[in-house]
């Protein structure tokens, strides 16, 4: 069992705020909590030196993490209450430690949109991929971020097997390019078929890296292919970047629409504007007789969109050519841009572009933050 004394013993190797007295003797330790292998330590510091104390903080955290039986360690710096209040100017905003979520916009990226669905298997990735290619055909600079870390589809959809290189700065990853769009996916880094077995925090840090430590360059739109559902990945995206909007993909049957409703509710809760709803696998046209069958019923997504006051962005048919080109790594918008199948996506892309760049604009300005 991990005891408080073990933690203090480990911290003896870390110099305290004065740079020499070991932390446990320095009197700066304000509290140690151990719970199920999770360790929390608070260190009192003069807030004027918060930045300089970051080294001590991370060192302390590393020492605790190295102890056997420690699942996680969190060391926070707290302001010493003794002494006169430091004047607010200058360091009033010196955060005690750096951690996500932070909602800074990403430099160089104008709009970020999420393509989401309530449940899996509705063709969300296929839609995201062809939408991105459609936006690129409209003349926009487009990137695709495959945020579905557990089931990355972009490598297959776009037929990419290369691995990303390091950018010239030696730190960021360079996205791969195909059909005129920049792409990043966890699938580039692991073998197809390998399973990513991660808990939430890993997912969150991977997504944060894909957003901020990929050399996206200048983009008009970054299309994010979200994993299905309403979990960690979705929340990370909603918290870490100011999303310009979200698009919900659903098939028309009730079972899918119920989940689509959850997706809509989630984006509402985090104030991400809903760009609209797309009905995928909307209908099937028989290639032999030309007869149309509404396999999953029809019009459900349109009703759902109307019920939520969201635009209905279009219907994509269930079509063997879309399926074949998707599985073959030659998406229909890139390989047959003049086909009727591609036309459905181009209409969708035009509507998304209009929603993002024309009219009143979907997103409201972020509030100003002032520290007096």
């Amino acid at each position, binding site marked *: 069992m991990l005891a408080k004394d073990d933690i203090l013993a480990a911290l003896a190797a870390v110099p305290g705020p004065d740079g020499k007295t070991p932390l446990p003797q320095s009197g700066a330790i304000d509290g140690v909590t151990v719970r199920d292998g999770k360790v929390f330590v*608070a260190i009192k510091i003069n*807030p004027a030196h918060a930045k300089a104390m970051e080294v001590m903080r991370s060192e302390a955290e590393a020492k605790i993490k190295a102890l056997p039986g420690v699942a996680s360690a969190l060391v*926070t710096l707290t302001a010493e209450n003794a002494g006169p209040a430091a004047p607010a100017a200058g360091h009033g905003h010196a955060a005690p*430690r750096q951690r996500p979520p932070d909602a800074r916009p990403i430099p160089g990226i104008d709009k970020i949109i999420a393509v989401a669905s309530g449940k899996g298997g509705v063709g969300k990735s296929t839609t995201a991929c062809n939408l991105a290619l459609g936006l690129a055909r409209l003349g926009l600079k487009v990137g695709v971020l495959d945020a579905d870390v557990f089931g990355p589809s972009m490598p297959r959809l776009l037929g990419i097997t290369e691995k990303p290189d390091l950018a010239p700065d030696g730190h960021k990853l360079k996205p791969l390019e195909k059909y005129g769009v920049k792409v990043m996916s966890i699938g580039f880094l692991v073998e197809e078929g390998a399973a990513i077995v991660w808990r939430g925090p890993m997912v969150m840090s991977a997504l944060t890296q894909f957003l901020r430590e990929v050399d996206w360059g200048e983009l008009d739109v970054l299309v994010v292919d979200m994993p299905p559902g309403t979990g960690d990945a979705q929340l990370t995206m909603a918290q870490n970047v100011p999303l310009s909007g979200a698009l919900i993909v659903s098939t028309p049957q009730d079972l899918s629409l119920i989940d689509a409703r959850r997706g809509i509710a989630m984006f509402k809760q*985090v*104030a991400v504007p809903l760009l609209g709803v797309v009905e995928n696998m909307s209908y099937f046209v028989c290639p032999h007789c030309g007869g149309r069958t509404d396999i999953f019923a029809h019009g459900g997504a349109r009703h759902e969109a109307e019920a939520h006051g969201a635009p209905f962005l279009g219907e994509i048919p269930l079509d063997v050519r879309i399926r074949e080109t998707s599985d073959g790594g030659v998406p229909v918008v890139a390989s047959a841009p003049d086909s009727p199948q591609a036309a459905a996506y181009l209409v969708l892309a035009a509507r998304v572009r209009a929603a993002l760049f024309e009219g009143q604009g979907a*997103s*409201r300005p972020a*509030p100003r933050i002032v*520290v007096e």
Partner: protein
Amino acid sequence: MGDEGNRGAPDPWPSELRVREAGRELRIAFADGFAASISAERLRAASPSADKRRASPGEGGVRIVAVETVGNYAARIAFDDGHDTGIYSWRLLRTLAAEQPPAS
């Protein structure tokens, strides 16, 4: 994200968050013109975080050390007692602001 109050009311949207009095209060102006100041103590006590840690030490009261936006819907407020995991949605801030006498 548990504050479900005022369903149906238009979504509150702040235009400015201003930390005043050396961190002892937060003044919030909303896009609809409403504005109020909320004390740091009140904000600290109303933290929606599951991880509230220990309460503030009492002496002199708690101060706000940092405010940053979270996505489009909330702000994260860090206090000088080390608590910085509370994510305050615009709706929660509006509810807290509405408790205060309107400020000039």
